[in-house]
């Protein structure tokens, strides 16, 4: 075989074969967006497969319903093929390219980043401040209590630098994916539709029937837990923005009182993340492994654990205010946040970006198909 095939991965060839069987069957068209999108095509180029794979929300409905699933000789396992393909698309579009290797051993990378992040924050603090600042008992007031531990300039600079790097890397990835598999011709209405579909997780059983979280039975647990985690994350992000605004614009320094906007947002967000991530991790361990891709487990667990630890250490920091442990808690929390920023473009986190692009393309395609 010569031609385009030799440039393709096994996952891609497998996904194409699956789509050809699915397109002749079409029993799954009621589950999600993938199958109606497939039906608009007769041929499946690599970029199209990457689009379909990222449109897939991994609800697994099509695996349990499939008359051609293993041990049938066709051996169709779209959920697994697409999961592998998604992972490949994250790596293909990662920026800078040499860091795409991080996707191959994501759990290891995430744990090393966590350890490294915490170590760097501790070392910097110890070098820049007296050990007393980290390990000593500090007064609850003055208002700039945290900055006695880590100087304001260092905290702000590190935060912004790592955050901006993550943003830049993800934008580069987005641009690359957009060029390869993004929508051609979309309207604001499509954007609004995609936003609604993403925000509601419509294709994770959002039409009411639920999805196959654990086995052949239907449930909405995974969708609910993802909402808890994702909206919890957004609340925490809002808390960070509110804190930055109050500090940098209004000049009110952290830590903030309990009844302030940054603390309240962070409190609710933190609990959301803890509940969501714990639930999702537990489900991952319970779930039938047949429709899952083993090579993704480490990335999934890595990100969930990192978010869980960030939220937990954040809440711990709140609880330890004014004690001798405050300095250590702050260093651990910020170390984890640093690890999150640095690994974000090379973690499961990017799935949201690629999925949104796919949803936007789907909205535009369906509008034109009507």
């Amino acid at each position, binding site marked *: 075989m010569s031609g385009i095939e030799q440039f393709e991965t096994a996952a891609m060839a497998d996904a194409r074969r699956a789509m*050809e*069987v699915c*397109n*002749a*069957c*079409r*029993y*799954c*068209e*009621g*589950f999600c967006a993938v199958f*109606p999108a497939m*039906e608009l095509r*007769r041929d499946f180029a690599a970029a199209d497969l990457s689009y379909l794979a990222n449109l897939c929300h991994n609800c697994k*409905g*099509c695996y*349990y*319903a*499939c*008359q*051609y*699933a*293993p*041990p*049938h*000789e*066709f051996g169709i396992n779209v959920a697994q093929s697409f999961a592998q393909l998604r992972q490949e698309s994250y790596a293909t579009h990662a920026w800078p390219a040499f860091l795409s290797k991080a996707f191959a051993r994501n759990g290891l990378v995430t744990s090393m980043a966590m350890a490294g992040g915490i170590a760097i924050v501790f070392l910097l603090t110890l070098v820049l401040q007296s050990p007393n600042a980290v390990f000593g008992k500090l007064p609850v007031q003055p208002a700039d209590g945290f900055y006695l531990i880590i100087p304001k300039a260092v905290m702000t600079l590190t935060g912004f630098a790592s955050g901006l790097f993550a943003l830049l890397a993800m934008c580069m990835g987005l641009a690359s994916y957009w060029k390869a598999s993004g929508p051609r011709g979309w309207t604001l209405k499509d954007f609004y539709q995609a936003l609604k579909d993403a925000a509601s997780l419509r294709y994770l059983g959002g039409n009411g*029937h639920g999805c196959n979280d654990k086995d*052949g*039975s*239907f449930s909405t647990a995974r969708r609910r837990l993802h909402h808890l985690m994702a909206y919890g994350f957004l609340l925490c992000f809002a808390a960070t923005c509110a804190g930055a605004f109050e500090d940098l614009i209004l000049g009110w320094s952290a830590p903030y009182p309990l009844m302030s906007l940054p603390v309240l947002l962070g409190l609710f967000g933190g609990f959301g993340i803890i509940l969501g991530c714990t639930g999702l991790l537990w489900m991952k361990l319970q779930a039938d492994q047949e429709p899952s891709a083993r090579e993704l487990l480490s990335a999934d667990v890595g990100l969930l654990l990192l978010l869980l630890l960030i939220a937990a250490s954040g809440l711990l920091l709140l609880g330890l205010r004014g004690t001798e442990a405050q300095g250590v808690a702050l260093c651990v929390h910020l170390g984890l946040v640093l690890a999150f920023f640095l690994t974000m473009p090379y973690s499961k986190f990017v799935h949201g970006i690629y999925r949104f692009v796919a949803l936007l393309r789907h909205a535009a395609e369906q509008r034109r198909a009507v």
Partner: protein
Amino acid sequence: MQLYTLRGEMDQKHLNFDIVVIGGGNAALTAAVEARLGGASVLVLEHAPKAMRGGNSRHTRNIRAMHAAPTSVLTEAYLEDEYWDDLQRVTGGQTDGELAKLTIRSTQDALPFMARCGVKFQPSLSGTLSLSRTNAFFLGGGKALLNAYYATAEALGVEVLYDTQITEVTLEGHRVRRLKAVSKGFPLELACKIVIAASGGFQANIEWLKEAWGPSAANFLIRGTPYAQGGVLRNLLDQGVASVGDPTQCHAVAIDGRAPKFDGGIATRLDCVPFSIVVNKHGQRFYDEGEDVWPKRYAIWGRLVAQQPDQVAYSIIDARAEKLFMPSVFPAIKAESIAALAEKLGLEPTALEETVSRYNAACVPGDFDSSTLDGVHTEGLSPPKSNWARPILQPPFIGYPLRPGITFTYLGVKVNERAEVIMRDERVVENLYASGEIMAGSILGKGYLAGFGMAIGTVFGRIAGKEAARNVRY
């Protein structure tokens, strides 16, 4: 009412349940659920391993349901008279009116029952047949439906034994005395009060098909489960149970010749015939490919191909027809010339070239329209092509091999309206009920009506389960 658990008790070789259901498809599971709801202890014996459970139901997609007003999944209304007319039309009258009307009326209650069992429905989106008024589509198809039934049955306490084939149903007079089975390779003897046979037809039993079709049956492909061996059916007929349906008949369509021997299911269908010419292994045409619209003709092509030498045929189109039909599961075989295509298909190039050029010369120019009977036909050609007769001119030329694909057989056991099995002396077997394809020949004696097999299976499965549970209490 004691439920015997099987785990760890396999070595006892004797299991005691009120009701044993033979089979693991829709008709078996609906029976098991109803029997358990009726208070009986129920054991389901499924021939297939768990991953392949569900008989032919795993390849189905919808159920034809009567309804007086629009429902969440069905549009408009579909009343008894129209349903009955549809059935009369396809069977040419080969149906038991009372059982058929009972089935039709009972489909009204089937959908709510299915929903209670966790079956999800979807609006019909696409596909070649527009059935949103008459048929309710299962979300994800038949296997998803079966998953819901199995989960329901297990939650209710029905025991399921997979990999278990019934080898003998022993009748004594008008009672079932004993069941013998092979379970996961080990012999098993079962005592039970009542048996429900829901073990399907015999379409996967090639030797049996040969009795009606001769050696050519060896070349048939079986679209559904390999476990429909008809062992229970034959066993019962041999012991004096009355039969229904023509033993020589089966529903056969032309499918992709590269399909697997068994279980190819829906994906192996080919809808290219009306836009093609179909030739046999000698490169000769043998039937009017454009006689009528495909939904009305696809079911005759299995028989037509079965009558050709080596039970094989080839559908030939040109580039212009490539996208007029549903995508095929196997890639199209393409070549730049008719002769090269013939070589790839294993046909005599000159014979195919001659057939194509004779056909091309006979095509009368007209307005080709794939969506309707366009009347674009041939003149002076035998056999003629009555519609969509556009010359095959534009490369690449495309071919698909065709083989007969057997869907189901019609021969079955005779039952009454309580799903009780009737013997040739017209008395019922006291403790034997039947549901699904094993008795469907009473109602669908000929032809095919989309979603009607599932209607019979669901309705008679439920009747058999309820009646059997009632019978246990006596």
